[in-house]
Structures are given as C-alpha cells and as structure tokens.
C-alpha cells in the first residue's frame, strides 16, 4: 500500500469516528440529522476510496447505496418526521455532553486496544478499518443509550450500521448480496421505526422514552 492511498483511507475512516463524536456533541434534533447526513456522506466517501484502493468495483455500489439512502433519503424522511411530530426544536439528553464525550473517548480507546491486540498480523488497512469501525459501532450504541428521544435513538442505530458497513468494506470479501440486503433491512427497520414513532406518539403524546419506563412501572 502506498503512503498516500493509505493516508487518505486512514483520514476518511478517522473522520467517520470524528463525525460520530460530532453526533454525540449535538443535542438539537435538526442539527443531529444534518450531522447524520454528513456521517453517511463520509462513509460513502470512505467506501468509495476503499473501492478504488482495493480495486473492488462492487464497493462502489455500496458507496452509492450509502450516499443515496443514508445521506439523502433517510435524513429527509427523518426531518419530515420530526417536523410532523413538532419536536424539531427539542433538546434532550440523559447524561450531559461532557460525560458522554468522555465515555466515547473511553470506548474509542477500548476498541483500539482490543483491535490492535487481536489483529496484530492482519493487513494494515483492514486492521485500522476494523479498529475505527468498532469505535463507530460502540459510539452508535452509546448514542442510543445516552439519548431519551426515540428519533435520536434511531439515528444512533443508523450510525451503528454505518460502522458495520465500514468494517465490511475493510475486511475484503463480504459479498455484495449481503451488503445490499443489510442496506435494505436497515431501510425497512427505519420504516418500521418510523411507523412506531407515530404509534408511540399517539399512545403517550411524546417520543420521550422515559414516558414508557413510567408506563411499565419501572420508575416511580
């Protein structure tokens, strides 16, 4: 692997981690959706660069899927949903931004330690991709845990899936069929969750997940 090719792959994968942190930092829903679109855009760029670097044309299709679905369709749809739910100005977090970022740094450190130990003799490109992908996945999980609002939990889920795509492109040899089906299942999950959002809202007059805790009698 030549220096520059590797450097650009590293830069794009690293920026995906940074975008995950930007997501954690945003507490306004509409800004969060913009950041999610940027997250998907960086993912598409990164996958396209991997396609170029590994000379694997089918990865271009993966990049196109990421670009069209995750950077355009899903953010637009999410924006419509929050406008219709009337929550596009809402601010919500369970833990503050600072502790969430610290936890995120801890998770990134954890995934680096794990991946660098486990994959000591792997191809350097795949290795660093896996390390970054694991941190994006963990940060997506963290996002789902630290947010109260169902919409931002959905965004956390989607960015987690972005991490999986990054891992798949780095690992060489994930068949295209699997990738396409993963992309579509995420889309379907998104539709189901979207319908659920409206149902939850009908039932409880809010998409705040604490309301559901109360309903189950778990809190007070």
């Amino acid at each position, binding site marked *: 692997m030549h*220096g*520059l090719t*590797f*450097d*650009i792959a*590293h*830069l794009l994968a*690293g*920026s995906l*981690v*940074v975008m995950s*942190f930007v997501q954690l*930092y945003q507490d306004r829903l509409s800004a969060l959706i913009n950041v999610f679109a940027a997250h998907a855009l960086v993912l598409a760029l990164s996958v396209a660069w991997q396609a170029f670097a590994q000379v694997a044309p089918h990865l271009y299709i993966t990049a196109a899927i990421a670009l069209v679905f995750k950077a355009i369709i899903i953010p637009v749809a999410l924006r419509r949903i929050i406008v219709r739910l009337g929550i596009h100005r809402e601010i919500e977090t369970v833990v503050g*931004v*600072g502790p969430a*970022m*610290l936890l*995120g*740094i801890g998770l*990134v*450190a954890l995934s*680096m330690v794990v991946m*660098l130990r486990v994959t000591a003799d792997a191809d*350097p490109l795949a290795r*660093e991709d896996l*390390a*970054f992908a694991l941190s994006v996945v963990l940060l997506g999980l963290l996002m789902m845990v630290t947010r109260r609002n169902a919409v931002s939990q959905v965004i956390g889920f989607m960015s987690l899936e972005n991490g999986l795509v990054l891992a798949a492109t780095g690992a060489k040899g994930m068949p295209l069929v699997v990738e396409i089906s993963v992309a579509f299942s995420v889309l379907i999950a998104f539709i189901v969750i979207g319908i659920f959002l409206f149902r939850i809202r009908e039932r409880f007059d809010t998409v705040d997940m604490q309301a559901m805790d109360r309903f189950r009698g778990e809190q007070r």
Partner: protein
Amino acid sequence: MAVIRELAIQSMQMLLVLFLAPLLTGFVRKVKARLLRRQGPPLSQPYRDLVRLMRKDVVLADNASWLFRVIPYFIFAATWIAASLVPTFRSGLMFSWSADLIAIIAVLGSARFFLALAGLDAGTSFGGIGSSREVMIASLAEPAMLMIVFTLALIAGSTQLSTMAAFMNSPEVGLRVSLGLGLIALIIVAIAENARIPVDNPATHLELTMVHEAMVLEYSGRHLALIELSAALKLLVYFSLIACLFAPWGMSPPTTEPLPLMAGVAAYGAKLVVGGVLLAVFETAIAKMRVFRVPGFLGAALMLALLATLLRFVSRSF
C-alpha cells in the same frame, strides 16, 4: 563572526515580533470593520494607542500592592520571550535549543497566572470576576493544549519547535487525521486563550461578558500599554505557533544569506495576513457564547486532542 550574525538574526526576530504584534491586531480589527461595512480605524491605530498610553500618568488604586506594579512588566517579558522563541521566518534560531513547546506553554501559563493575580490584587469585584473566569477557561484550555503537544510530539518525535517544523515540512508526514484534529483543537485553544469572540469579546466593556478586560480594568498609563502590547504579542505567538507547526512552508533554513531570509519574512507575513483574514471572518460570522457554554467549547478541544492521540496509535505501525 558567525555568532554575531546568529545573534543579529535572533534579535531581528525579537524586534520583528514586537513590531508586527500591534500591526496584526490592527489588521484583524480593520478587516472586521470592513466586513461590517464600516471604515474602521487605520492600521496604525494600535501603535498610536500604545504611544498615547505610554505618555499618560499611571493611576494606582490605593490598596494596590507592589505586585500590581510589577506584573505588567513581568507579563510583557514572558510573552515577548515566548514570541521570540517560536520560529517565525527562519528555523534554527540561536536560542532555539530553549524553544521547547512545553516551555513556551509554561511561560505563557505563568504570565496568565500573574494576570489573574493582578485582577484580584486591587480588590474590586470586576477584577475578581475576570480572574475567576480566566482561571476557569485556563483550567480547560491548558489540558487541551498539553494533549495537542503530546500528539504533535509523538508524531514529530520531538518537542523542539525547529525540529517539529522541519519534520512537518518533510514529505514523510503525509496526510494524517491526528494532525487535522490537533489543528482544530489548537485553533479552539488559541481562540480561548486570546479572548477572541466566541469565548470573550476583546472590544467590549460590558461587565457581564468580559473576561480579559475585567482583569485589566484597574490598569492605566504605561502599565495598560504593556498589557495591551502583551495581549497583541500573545495573539501573534499563537498565529506563529499554528503557522510553524501546521504550515511551515517557506520558512527559511538556518542560513545567514539575506535572500532566503527575506523570502522567509515574506512568507511569514503572507501567513499572518491569511490567518488574520480567517480570524476576522470567523469572528464576524459567529456570536459570542454564554460563559457557561465555554466549558463545552473547550471540552470539545480536549476531546479532539485526546482523540488525535488515540488515532495516532492506530497509525503507529506504518
């Protein structure tokens, strides 16, 4: 003879930064004014202010201690030392063995410590507010700054500014995500340290928003002139630091030939102009933050710097 030439170049750098610092401040003000479609003060205004302040009498508070009188000189000296150690137009200056990044941060940090003491010394409430806010900002900015230094030192293999600049100029640096993160974090820290707009407004005397101005409220005459000059110098230090670490192009090699030196000075001037315009555009485009949002802003710098250090370890083996 060689020693004398080296000394001459070192003192040229000292005088250059001293001369350029008010010009840079004036330039940023001018660009900001033009962006707001105002005429703005002329570029020489900061010099005139300094000369006028130098001529005026000093008015001291009744209960000010000796510390209050000594501190302006100390702050000025510390900032000037920092400014003359950062390589600007030529690497490998005579005293560059002492131009350690950590040492420069320590010098600037001690200047800030004494400024905060001066704010408390006269016993007015504004000074107290200013000092407490300044220390709060410092307690967040300095860890971030140190993390940035660690990242850069890990990448360049040295904390010596000349060596680091030479490394950054060589093609083996490549495109590194850690460096990008470090640059963003350093810019955030520089904005906070220099009391620029999202953190503090250098042009205001509104009591609820000021940090730096609140601390120096009791100063007058030549003391105030020195403090203003050191504030301008500090801005120049951070500009030079960013230019030296992230854009060392055009810096003259350690030589005494006049031609490369002139080219180095010209490149440095161009970098300052670009940086000044960018700062002015940024400051015009953004609104000042509430004081309680500043920890979040600086926390982001700390996070970015930490992340840069972590990501550095992924690319370690190549």
